[in-house]
């Protein structure tokens, strides 16, 4: 029955990704619309054309380059086969177990035990682990973590989660720009403009909050199913359980290189804050022990 479940999840992820792209596009155009009325209706067409061009290029870049953006933003480096033999060995073994193509492997400098995967599909996927994970985890524990990341790749979580990440970033930027631009507005007010400015302000404040809650809800469920997929690949839940226990007991400081938007991509919450986008580690261990 599990097989049907994950197929459902894959098609759901693909559908949601498509919807998300439409929503991103619509939000951009809507912002352009509101902004053009708020400032100067005379520039309506110019602003609309700019916002459509901008949103299309934004979507195309985020769809095709999301993995590179994520990798660059945490300053990860391509892992060399000579230096990281075990890392390569384990991922190659797991690609055989899962039938997935070999992802590109990266390493990021951090004392935390952590990892993430990104990309738009299994053929264009990247996996990145921290140096802390490579040093502190035993072979089978590291394998569990890597299998979890390959689970995200196989389930097409990477496409959806990366798109959400990009959307969160985009909405934050646009609403910021809008709110700031209000300071520089010339004084000639009429009522029509006033209403649109109010709508704009409301959108600018509410949108990031709404997105934040969406982001929280989606990534929690995905972590559990990626754990389950990892066990399907390795047939050895203990590796993952031991890795999670090690993460629970480690006292590394929050990772400063990771932005809030990027945090849900990670294996465990890199920011270590309470408003977590990840399910509690205890719950994940519990679920794995029941397998």
């Amino acid at each position, binding site marked *: 029955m599990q*097989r049907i479940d994950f197929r459902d999840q894959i098609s759901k992820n693909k559908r949601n990704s498509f919807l998300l792209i439409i929503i991103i596009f619509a939000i951009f155009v809507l912002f352009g619309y509101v902004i053009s009325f708020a400032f100067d209706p005379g520039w309506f067409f110019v602003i609309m054309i700019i916002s459509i061009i901008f949103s299309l290029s934004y979507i195309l870049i985020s769809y095709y380059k999301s993995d590179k953006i994520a990798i660059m933003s945490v300053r990860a480096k391509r892992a060399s086969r000579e230096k990281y033999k075990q890392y390569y*060995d384990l991922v*190659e*073994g797991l690609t*055989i*177990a899962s*039938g997935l193509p070999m992802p590109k492997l990266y390493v990021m400098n951090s004392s935390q035990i952590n990892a993430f995967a990104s990309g738009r599909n299994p053929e264009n996927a990247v996996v990145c682990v921290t140096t802390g994970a490579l040093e502190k985890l035993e072979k089978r524990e590291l394998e569990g973590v890597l299998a979890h990341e390959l689970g995200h790749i196989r389930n097409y979580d990477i496409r959806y989660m990366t798109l959400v990440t990009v959307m969160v970033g985009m909405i934050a930027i646009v609403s910021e720009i809008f709110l700031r631009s209000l300071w520089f507005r010339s004084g000639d007010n009429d009522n029509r403009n006033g209403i649109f400015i109010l709508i704009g302000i409301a959108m600018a404040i509410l949108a990031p909050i709404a997105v934040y809650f969406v982001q929280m809800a989606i990534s929690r469920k995905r972590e559990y199913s990626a754990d389950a997929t990892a066990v399907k*690949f390795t*047939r050895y839940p203990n590796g993952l359980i031991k890795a999670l226990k090690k993460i629970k007991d480690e006292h590394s400081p929050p990772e400063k290189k990771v932005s809030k938007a990027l945090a849900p991509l990670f294996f465990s919450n890199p920011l270590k804050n309470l408003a977590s986008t990840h399910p509690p580690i205890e719950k994940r261990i519990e679920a794995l022990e029941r397998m």
Partner: protein
Amino acid sequence: MLLWLLLGVAGFILLVIFYYYNKFAVLSNRIDNSLSQINVQLKRRADLIPNLVESVKGFMKHERAAIKAVTDARKTLVGARDIVGKVKADNVLENALSRLFAIAEGYPDLKANTNFLELQRELSSTEDRIAYARQFYNDSILSYNNLCTTFPGRFFSKLFHRQLKDYLEITEKEKKLVKVEF
């Protein structure tokens, strides 16, 4: 009107037949592919053995029997015709190797030899891969057999003359590692 209805029904049936035909084809291709993956990994392991024997020979002069067991097992593996024979030979090879590595524990010079350590690592990762390749092979057979035995796939499997496939199984006795005695 009736004609259109009949055409619609015929078109639908044709689509369903295409769908199931392709599904069977995809799944059995996956089985073939995963089988070749097992063969690739088995060959990889067999290719590593001569190097290992070469690097071990100088150090372990008095362990002829253990070394010979490894080379013999390799010979059977290379000579085996079908996948079942190969997997059986590979199990024998695995036992012989683990005995050889256990004996190697008693040779500090060998344990410090980077070439030997590299080969040991390579062989153990190949062992993982063989296990994973077999797991994926059996998984592929499971999804194929599931399609063959559940409705409506069962009906189409008869139509396309698709037979159930056998899992690659190893008996418990074969799986058990040989005890090492000193």
